[in-house]
């Protein structure tokens, strides 16, 4: 029992130490950042690194309004209930000026609604759901990353060009996969009315039964496949598909498949010739990106992932908004965010006044294997401004403020 | 007056016959022992009488009512109480609470969500405990009682239902010899006072012959002989079947 007491004492001392540490840092401008760091670490570790890089650059350049910028990080446990509590803590105890972050769509939507209720600015960095800017859009919420609909529509021109008739679809069975599938079917039908969807496989997120799914796709004899799988599901799908010869002579489109987060895990088994959206950091030659890449590699001794760019651009957006507003008042910040323009590693982006969606795009191209690693071989930048429904459609979807 | 009439009940478990056309009667105030080797069908018979099992055929009457298709609560309402081979009490309750529980159940007060159960029927419970010599233990937890005392609590719970017929499955099993005699004497005294009929099973022949008015001898689900202790003692079938090689 003696040893036990020592452990307890040690733990209490430790807790006190951390609590004390957190009480430091005064007089700075505080932003609250929430994310599911422990649930989606593969994406959010690089994301946080991107944020810190931008933060350090901002402060090195004199901060905002001559004050130091500070980001208070909170883990939302991947759960909207905990996320709302953490956000309340950031707003009331930490007195942050506005909120950033979130990854999962349900968490993003919950925080967006909290932002509306508490009347504070929220820059949703990662969530892909279309609803956050459309059906559930609100005055206080802006979103950086290209939405499911935008990324899906970037793949459609290539898909339509192939004139394949029989399409099979596989998607993770939740809102992201469902929306991507619905958008894809809808858009492809418009440009190719005779298209036929021969099978749809909805797989439980993180639990794909890849053998059976691949077999079912083989049996459906499709000409092409549209997949929105990612992460471990994608790895299993690719490996089983390779072994069973599913991808022979079939065109495959995979949303997000070119992001290093997902492509790198496949190593030399990465598929070749797939059509994907992603982030070919090794081959983007624009000056903005080169600058970012050099700074990132210097700071972290690691290459950036898609999340790094998002984290970096989120902080830049926040800084630009504060500078444009010239104030930390929520209403002025919101006004500044509407139509805000800034330089991101992907070039100039704009937060649309219409639906608060940023025009940051994604790279669309085809995959290949180089030196035992999956890469995007040919690609082009899909500018987010161009892949949008008509303004009238968006107005119909988005409720008035 | 006939309290219990069993007419030709049979019961089999997946082919094996546990009770084979068993019939007997029990008169008011009578104390009857049912004996027989293990597996003779005594517990099965009790379970049928108390509604926990259905007989495959045959009928049971308590008074004038046919109970063959009744469930336990209905049979209880007719005044049939029961104790178990291994004393079953509620071990997270005090002794008094156990008896109160039985009284509350008897009076249909269990759906009450509001009153404090510990205050209800306390007086009656104490009276019953006094009759059984357990009043001094009223506030103790059942989990700390000696086995003999548990048996008394169980008996008090059975009596709380105001039975006219008490079914006791090996009332003295697992007790020290002295305790056995005391407990059985108590049962008999209470039964005589309350004009109760008792049907009990027992392996201890001293107790059976000392207290039973009549004895039923079962073997392999069949009633092979019945009568007063003296008659059974004299019956050669009984001697052969049971008494002769009784090593229990």
């Amino acid at each position, binding site marked *: 029992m003696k040893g036990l007491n020592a452990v307890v004492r040690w733990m209490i001392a430790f807790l006190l130490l951390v609590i004390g540490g957190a009480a430091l840092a005064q007089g700075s401008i505080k932003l609250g950042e929430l994310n599911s760091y422990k649930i989606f670490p593969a994406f959010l570790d690089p994301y946080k690194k991107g944020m810190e890089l931008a933060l350090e650059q901002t402060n090195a350049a004199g901060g905002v309004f001559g004050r130091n910028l500070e980001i208070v990080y909170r883990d939302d446990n991947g759960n909207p209930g905990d996320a709302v509590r953490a956000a309340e803590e950031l707003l009331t105890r930490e007195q942050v000026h506005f909120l950033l972050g979130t990854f999962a769509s349900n968490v993003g939507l919950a925080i967006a609604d909290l932002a509306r209720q508490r009347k504070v600015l929220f820059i949703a960095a990662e969530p892909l759901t279309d609803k956050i800017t459309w059906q559930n859009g609100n005055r206080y919420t802006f979103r950086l990353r290209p939405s499911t609909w935008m990324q899906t529509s970037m793949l459609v021109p290539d898909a339509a060009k192939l004139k394949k008739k029989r399409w099979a679809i596989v998607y993770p069975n939740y809102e992201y996969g*469902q929306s991507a599938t619905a958008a894809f079917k809808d858009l492809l039908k418009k440009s190719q009315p005779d298209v036929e969807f021969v099978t749809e496989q909805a797989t439980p997120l993180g639990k794909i039964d890849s053998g059976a799914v691949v077999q079912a796709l083989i049996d459906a004899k499709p000409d092409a496949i549209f997949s929105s799988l990612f992460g471990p599901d994608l790895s299993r799908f690719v490996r089983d598909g390779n072994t069973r010869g599913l991808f022979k002579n079939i065109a495959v489109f995979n949303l997000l498949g070119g992001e290093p987060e997902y492509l790198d895990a496949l190593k030399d088994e990465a598929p070749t010739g797939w059509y994907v959206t992603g982030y070919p950091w090794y081959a983007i030659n624009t000056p903005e990106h080169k600058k970012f890449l050099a700074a990132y590699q210097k700071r972290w001794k690691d290459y950036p992932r898609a999340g790094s760019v998002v984290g970096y651009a989120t902080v830049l957006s926040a800084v630009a908004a504060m500078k444009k507003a010239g104030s930390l008042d929520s209403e002025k910040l919101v006004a500044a965010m509407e139509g805000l323009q800034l330089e991101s590693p992907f070039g100039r982006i704009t937060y649309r006044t219409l639906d608060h969606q940023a025009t940051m795009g994604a790279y669309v191209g085809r995959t290949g294997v180089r030196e035992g690693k999956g890469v995007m071989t040919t690609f082009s930048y899909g500018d987010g401004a161009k892949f949008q429904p008509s303004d009238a459609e968006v107005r119909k979807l988005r409720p008035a403020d | 007056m006939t309290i219990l009439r069993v007419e030709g009940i049979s019961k089999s478990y997946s082919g094996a016959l546990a009770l084979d056309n068993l019939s007997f009667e029990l008169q008011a105030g009578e104390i009857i022992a049912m004996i027989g080797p293990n597996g003779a069908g005594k517990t099965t018979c009790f379970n049928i009488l108390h509604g926990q099992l259905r007989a495959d055929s045959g009928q049971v009457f308590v008074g004038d009512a046919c109970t063959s298709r009744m469930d336990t609560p209905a049979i209880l309402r007719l005044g049939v109480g029961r104790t178990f081979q291994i004393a079953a009490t509620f071990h997270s309750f005090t002794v008094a609470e156990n008896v109160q529980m039985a009284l509350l159940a008897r009076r249909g007060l269990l759906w009450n*969500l509001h009153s404090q*159960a510990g205050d209800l029927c306390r007086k009656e419970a104490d009276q019953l405990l006094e009759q059984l010599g357990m009043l001094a233990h009223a506030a103790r937890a059942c989990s700390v009682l000696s086995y003999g005392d548990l048996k008394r609590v169980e008996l008090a719970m059975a009596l709380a239902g105001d039975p006219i017929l008490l079914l006791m499955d090996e009332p003295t099993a697992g007790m020290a010899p002295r305790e056995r005699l005391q407990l059985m004497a108590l049962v008999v005294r209470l039964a005589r006072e309350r004009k109760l009929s008792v049907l009990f099973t027992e392996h201890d022949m001293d107790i059976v012959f000392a207290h039973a008015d009549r004895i039923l001898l079962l073997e392999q689900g069949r009633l092979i002989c019945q009568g007063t202790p003296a008659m059974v003692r004299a019956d050669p079938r009984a001697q052969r079947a049971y008494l002769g090689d009784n090593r229990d």
Partner: protein
Amino acid sequence: MSSFVLQFLNGLTSASTLFMVAAGLSLIFGITRVLNFAHGSMYMLGIYLAYSAIGAFSVGGVLTPVAFWGGILCAAVLVGMVGALVELTVLRRVYRSPELFQLLATFGVVLLTKDLVLWFWGPEDLLGPRAPGLGGAVEILGSPFPEYDLFLIVVGPLILGLLWLLLHSTRWGLLIRAATQDREMAAALGINQKLLFTSTFALGAFLAGLGGALQIPREPAQHFLDFTVIVDAFVVVVVGGMGSIPGAFLAALLIGEVKALCIGIGEIGAFGFGISLPKLTLVVESLVMAAVLIFRPWGLMGRALAVLPDAGEARPLLARNTAATRMAGVAIVAALAITPAFANQYSLVLLVDILIFALFAASLHFLMGPSGMASFGHAAYFGLGAYAAALAFKQAGLPMEISILVGPLVAVLAALSFGWFCVRLSGVYLAMLTLAFAQITWSVIYQWDGFTGGSNGLVGVWPAPWLSGRISYFYLVLLLCGGAVLILRRIIFSPFGYALRACRDSPMRAAAIGINVSRFQWMAFLVAGGFAGLAGALFAFSKGSISPEVLAIGQSVDGLVMVLLGGVQTISGPLVGAAVFTWLQELVARHIDYWRALLGMIIIVIVVAFPHGIVGQLFSRNRAKE
């Protein structure tokens, strides 16, 4: 036809995989009666360790068969050692605790392992190499089929056979079987129980580790594996019959094949309705489990036995209110009531969470404690209460004040329908059936995008203006949760509550004095479900949004942890447990990155220091003094 055969083979592959994890879990439960929540973590450790071991053995980066198979074996052995270590350091100390308490200890291990793995192996998914010599495919009926999958199809039955041999032709196996049948008897015969338990844990963990390591060519090592695997493993064990290893095999086969068939058949149409069978894979395990348990209450090959560990153990008396406890209660409520005067706004937010979870835990305790029915799916009522309130508010346009009442109402209806099936079962089987119902409910809400908002949930569920301030909402929650907890307490001491405890203590005696046991237990579901629903409705309006997490397994597990942490045998335990757990989680998560590891460690320390739960321990100390 060929596709049918191939899908059948796919089913066999996943059955083999499932069986390997489930076998170890079943073995551990059979002997120690511990529901080992950390079994999935052992599986995850197995796959990570195999990844590293194979890498380390591949000298110069060349993958040889020796490196591959040696790595897998090495990983499994290491995991076995970890299992033994967990048994020796933690579980050994809590065998005598109240039922299910060991589950709490293993939950701590789960949290700890999760962060250790993240810290050691980093965040990225690690896809292992293909098996040398088995990396390709063979033609079966004109379609390529992976050789490694065929290998796995053989390995499952092989392990079943080896286990059978081990159990039936070694002395150790004899002891194991004796202990599975009757632990006390085995102890009385002088079997060294400590050694037996440790070796069982080691073997169980070894099997889990092996199951994980063998998956290395098929799936990437990643952080979710522990949770996805543990639920499936539990389902297999329960469907097969707890402690029965052939049963586990049969269950794995059933589930594997049903899943493969769902995927293989695809869409079916009948009577103008189209049903997408692949979508069912989300809940196929739960559907199979519910179907099996409804018809076979002890699983496919299980036997009727007292399944809950120490179900017959003497439970302490419930202390009635004394002047002192009454005073303490009044003081706590009074202190809470004046909090808004001095505390900051965030304390109120946190207190609202604590109060709501306290009611949730109290309602779960009503089932687990006085009624003796553990529920692993209590989040169903919490979540349905939340969703019903939110939907009444958003879709039906009812005022918020009315919507809050719709929550418990719907939860009661759900509790009545689920409870009707559940009360026919007992012990872990009952608990797992509640989990099955909760999972089925979850999947309906998760998929019904048009009505429930699907996986995104519903937003804009805010209180009426007069209640929308943090202070006014705090008072509403204090009033409703405080009142509900008092009512629950009152019910526990009422004749109804006594009858429930009677049914728990001795169903046989309860029936003999005229209590209709299953009807009372059914009504216990009603009470517990209703109050959980109220907590859920309050939760929805406190957050302004609601998503399927509120009725997912995680929420049910949180409830269990709260109740066990506080002490299942006391009435105030769950309240304390909810407060401590919520507060700790908030505090720890705020201050360190590896907060799950710290929280896990704290839970383990609490488990070892308070083997009867926090409040339970204080009470038993008091009693000891008296």
